[in-house]
């Protein structure tokens, strides 16, 4: 059980600054997910915390102790690797106990911890098998078990589910969340899958090019993205964006205009809205409601999921938008529907991509 503080962490490989400077505080017992596109530095950040890479500058503190220059094994962290990284020549039992033997733990204690971890992960019947005799999901459990036996202060997960098939991924997602509830340890989880981030995290850290774009609870990020990048990255399918300008600012409403589109009155007030300012309007697919007014959208493809429908449409000026309609849509290919976001269910971003705060 521990908190983690990153203070101005920098990491460069040669002349390349992978992480130009990160400050982050993770509280005791939190489940934090680092998310971002490939190459955003999320895995590097995890490896820096693990001690598998040396920091170029800055400090890492676990509770009050600086561990930036402590060997990986002595930091009290355990890591679950993307590839599982099980020892192929050892049985599951040996895989689980290897780390404990290395610190010369007493045999009875090792055996107690191994059976406890095996029971927790329901791999007791696999203890005498080798990794190659296990399925992907079972290997994943063993990898997690290996981390559990070490009883670490902090668990680190590096894209642990990316090698599993879709169905198993959903299952393991739930299991890891349950495991976190049961163990209560601080866990840091790296993924490029924003659904994993949304469903598992207490707190999401969105990274891009080694820089933290936003930190917050999943729904906070979903509802109040700080900038265009977060708005586009969090949420699937992604938010629709339309570039334009502010045409008028009224009492509790803003009028948005774009070339070739009729002006759209957005209900809800924002701070610092200047008439004529270039802005980008962001509306999530489920927030574009089909109404009798609003923008005309021509349906090009209607995907019927049964419980809901996705309408791939084009606004005038060939602006693609995706509309998520609950239930089974009656719209078909070539139909023109009218869409507009309801009060407050829209986002405006200034020319620098920063969100205009709602008043």
């Amino acid at each position, binding site marked *: 059980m521990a908190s983690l503080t990153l203070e101005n962490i920098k990491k460069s490989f040669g002349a390349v600054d992978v992480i130009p400077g990160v400050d982050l505080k993770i509280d005791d017992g939190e489940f934090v997910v680092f998310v971002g596109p490939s190459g955003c530095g999320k895995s590097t950040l995890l490896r820096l915390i693990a001690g598998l890479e040396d920091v170029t500058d800055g400090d890492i503190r676990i509770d009050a102790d600086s561990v930036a220059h402590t060997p*990986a*094994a002595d930091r009290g962290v355990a890591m679950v690797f993307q*590839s599982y*990284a099980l*020892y192929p020549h050892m049985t599951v039992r040996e895989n689980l106990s290897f780390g404990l033997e*290395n610190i010369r733990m007493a045999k009875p204690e090792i055996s107690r911890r191994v059976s406890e971890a095996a029971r927790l992960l329901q791999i007791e019947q696999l203890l005498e098998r080798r990794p190659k005799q296990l399925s992907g999901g079972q290997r994943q459990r063993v990898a997690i078990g290996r981390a559990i036996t070490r009883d670490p202060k902090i668990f680190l997960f590096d894209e642990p589910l990316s090698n599993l098939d879709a169905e198993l991924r959903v299952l393991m997602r739930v299991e890891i969340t349950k495991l976190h509830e049961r163990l209560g340890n601080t866990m840091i989880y790296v993924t490029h899958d924003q659904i994993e981030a949304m469903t598992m995290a207490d707190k999401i850290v969105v990274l891009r090019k080694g820089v933290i774009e936003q930190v917050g609870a999943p729904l906070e990020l979903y509802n109040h993205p700080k900038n265009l990048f977060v708005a586009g990255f969090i949420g699937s399918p992604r938010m629709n964006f339309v570039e334009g300008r502010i045409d008028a600012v009224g009492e509790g409403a803003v009028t948005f205009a774009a070339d070739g589109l009729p002006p759209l009155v957005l209900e809800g007030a924002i701070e610092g809205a200047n008439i004529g300012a270039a802005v980008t309007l962001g509306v999530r697919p489920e927030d574009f409601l089909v109404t009798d007014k609003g923008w005309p959208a021509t349906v090009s493809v209607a995907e019927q999921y049964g419980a809901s429908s996705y309408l791939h449409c084009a606004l005038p000026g060939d602006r693609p938008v995706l509309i998520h309609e609950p239930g089974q849509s009656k719209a078909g290919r070539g139909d023109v529907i009218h869409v507009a976001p309801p009060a407050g269910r829209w986002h405006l971003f200034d020319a620098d991509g920063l969100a205009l705060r709602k008043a």
Partner: protein
Amino acid sequence: MSAGTQFAAAAGAAVALPARIVEPFMYGLQRLLGIKRMPWVFLVPNLTAVVLFALLPVFINIFYSVSGSDRLYPWDRPVVGGANYATLFDCDNFLDPSTCSRDLFWRALGNTLVFVPVQVTAMIVIALLTAICLNRDIRGRGFFRGIFFFPVMLSPVVVALTWQWILQRNGALNGLISSAGLTPVNWLVFPNTAFFWSVFVTVWAHMGFYTIILLAGLQSIPRDVYEAAKMDSATPWRAFTRITLPLLKPVLLVVFILAVIRSVQTFDELYVLTGGGPGSATMLMVQYIYEVGFAAQPRNFGLAAAASLLLGVALLIFTAIQMRISRGGKDD
């Protein structure tokens, strides 16, 4: 079109033309012989080579070992039964070669029994250490990989002559030693130093080959397994003994078998470097066989054949044991 598909298309065209001629011929042959005999048609070319150049010599060798005189053609040679073997084993005390009628055979055997374990051990240890170093992220890694492999490409005679030039009384090494103000040593004249340099030179000449095999083995061990071991508090030594060695076991076994066979066969380098001397201090089995059968007058083919057959049987037994062990290793 990518280079690969272009190549495949070109190869296809090259095959297509002869196929037009070969195919009807093969079909005709199949009609003539029947389909059950067809495999033999494909096997005969290789089989002929194996029979002519491997199997037949073995049988000729067996016949030579049980026949006498210095005549070359088998039909001129009288059968003497086990006389050649009896001569080789004619000893008052097997532990003292000077009590044997063919003392050189026993000395060569003794030398080989010391040389092979020492040379193979040194070879594997040094090749493994080199491979581990070359597997790290060191500057000029490609250059060093090339350098260590370089001696493998040299002719054994070139290797031996080079080292003779270095080690002889007025050689390069003694030049260095005397310029440092120390007393030169006549390296190839004393049995112990000559033996040491025999091992050294053969290891130097061949280790590059084994280094490459071991390097490939090391590279097949995933990096994150070592990272997991690091997180698991494994010291570098423990990671080596508990991760590297077990995962390298299959490759080590191959290297071991190849190195032993190669070591037992050692002849050319030492024949040129030391000539088996001083005295018979560095004479190994293969050189003994060569000298008895071809260099000495009269040529004693029978004795040489008997000795080489014994060597062959010894290698066969060794390989069988190794295969058993390696099969045992596969099961677990």
